[in-house]
């Protein structure tokens, strides 16, 4: 049997197998993040005193990171466009821009956390901060994982190999972006 198996190349639903799998991954991620954020939301509405803690999050840093992620999503979709045209080198370059966006995001986030922790707002300060660090941390873990995978894909794409994966990682990346789009108002704007 050759590898990959014939099974991987069939597509009875009309969606390429890889993309179909990514949709299922996202469906399961939606409920993971959703469970956490729904819990946060219930506490947030039930505990008006959290407003005092929420004041201390930095809207400007949050907004800047939103900008970074939106931009990286933009470069990811441009990468996909390039891959569709078969321009692997260009696609790889866009993916590297996206990785740089991820690095910026994580860098800014580290600074933000360092600042907050050094001012005494740690994960155990109260439940608002517990949710803040848990939700943002889970998201940051996804950012880092996505960037690492994207590195591998960019390396292949530069050699015009596995170009379809540029789209797959792109879909995942946009999802990470969407999660942040909701985290941003939940943690930074609604005070």
């Amino acid at each position: 049997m050759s590898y990959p198996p014939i099974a991987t190349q069939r597509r009875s639903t009309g969606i390429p197998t890889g993309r179909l799998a990514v949709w299922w991954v996202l469906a399961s991620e939606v409920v993971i993040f959703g469970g956490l954020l729904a819990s946060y939301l219930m506490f947030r509405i039930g505990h008006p005193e959290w407003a005092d803690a929420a004041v201390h999050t930095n809207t400007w840093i949050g907004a800047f990171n939103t900008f970074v992620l939106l931009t990286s999503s933009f470069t990811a979709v441009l990468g996909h466009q390039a891959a569709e045209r078969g321009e692997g080198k260009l696609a790889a370059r866009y993916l590297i821009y996206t990785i740089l966006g991820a690095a910026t995001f994580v860098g800014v986030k580290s600074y933000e956390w360092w600042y907050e922790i050094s001012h005494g707002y740690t994960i155990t300060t109260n439940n608002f901060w517990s949710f803040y660090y848990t939700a943002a941390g889970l998201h940051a873990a996804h950012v880092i994982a996505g960037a690492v995978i994207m590195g591998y894909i960019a390396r292949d794409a530069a050699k015009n190999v596995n170009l379809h994966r540029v789209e797959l990682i792109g879909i995942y990346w946009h999802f990470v972006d969407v999660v942040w789009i909701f985290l941003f108002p939940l943690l930074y704007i609604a005070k």
Partner: protein
Amino acid sequence: MADASVTTVEGAVEHHAHEHHGPQGILKYIWSTDHKIIAMQYLFTGLFMGLVGGLMAYVFRMQLAFPGISVPGFGVVSPHEYNALVTNHGSIMIFWVAMPVLIAAFGNFLIPLMVGADDMVFPKINRLSYQVFFVSAVLILASLFVEGGGFGGAWTAYPPLSAQGDYNLSSLGATLWLIAVALEFIAFLLGGINFITTMMNSRAPGMKAYDIPLVCWMIVIASILFMLSVGPLIAGAIMLLFDQTIGTGFFDPARGGDPILWQHLFWFFGHPEVYVVLLPALGITIDIVATFSRKKVFGYKIMLYTVVATGVLSFFVWAHHQFIAGIDPRMANVFMVTTLLISVPIAELCFVVIATLYGGSITLNTPMLWALAFMAEFLLGGVTGIFLGATGADIYLHDTYFVLAHFHYTFFPIAIIGTFAALTYWFPKMFGRMMNDTLGKIHFWGTIIPFNFIFIPLFVLGLGGQHRRIYDFQNFPELAAMQPFRVFATMSLIVMLLFQLVFFYNFIQSLRKGPKAERNPWKANTLEWTTESPPPHGNWPPDQLPRVYRGPYEYAHPDREEDYWPQNLPA
């Protein structure tokens, strides 16, 4: 673009021609990406864990029947050991036996064969899934031996008991338990994505949605249920892990947390989980019943829609586990109605099986006996569930042995009877040899009769007011009087465990010396029977992958001489 892609495609085929040998020797079995090998890995790990879980049951049942004695092979059971044993018995039986065997082992083995594909769509992810699962199995076993002992806060791990080492006295055990469970979830998410995409996308040419064998449908629907329900619990597991290790207060009421939240997160997953393991067992049953009744499944589409309805409804019932936990009584009413409603589709599934049997020419061999026993015993579990679904009765019965017996009447048929049914039915295909039918029947009766003798007394004890998770009932005079029931249940358990030796003997003997199995020993229709037993690497020769012309249950068709009509035979 088109040109580029064509050349790469050809290049890829050439490139892979010399890659397929893969690892050799023993590594072939450990490092293989072949779905059949991975199925075996899951199967044997699951059976081993089942043995561990069964022996745990033996130890704590001995303690309950003869409090304070030195249990042969274990020694005196301390209260903390008792808690750890019941907790891990539950966790292991559900997460490391029922799920790996029913979903992962048979899902892996059957789905590619039944849809006529040469492998899973993502073989490497499949391998990763087992590896993660293996690590989780090692962790759960290791958690029993760390300082402070295994986690003893029940398989539901309610905080605050589970959240603080001060309360459960085994902080390391609790953390390892939690990590093991979380890893197990990840393994099944990886596996589930494979099952779902394989069935959706890699069907043999000609195979339409209604030509897929029901067992495939059920395993896939179960995987979807699992995937969509486990998310909140994964989030909850992260929160609980932080409560345990970093000292957050997500579930600590004194710090604004809410232990009820964990119960919701847990049961939002926990109830669909019942159907996650039920559906594969039901699918196995229906396939076996159709084959050995030589009849078309009564109402294929009805069955399928009913299962989908069951799956949807199963998301609406979770809070019936929390009727006395302090949830809002108005919500309890809502959940009571949905809970009672779900018995309608389940009853429908039972009737479909009965209607399939009706008028068939039935062969009562070992797999068929197991399949019929599944329906009979599960029915008892389902009916007793109606008592518990009614809020009024549940206030009295909650957390008694009535719940425990009800639960085992559903899970034992699923995890044990379903597994044996599938194993005896597909054994020829998996290992290329036939099993001994007489020994199989001895094992069957030796399991089923003691099973009922274990759990019927527990119903009585539960109605008598005996609570779960109590180490020693001698302090309660009115419960101590019912000691003979406990002794009887324990004795039955020991008999049942001893009869499993018959199975292991039969399994090993048949594996070594059983008569060689032909391709299609049961004269069944589905695609897995059209290849060799056991199927070669790639299942069929690459140029002879099957094509499908009809549904999977065309038995006793009036126009045909033979009473079966394989899916791949041209009309």
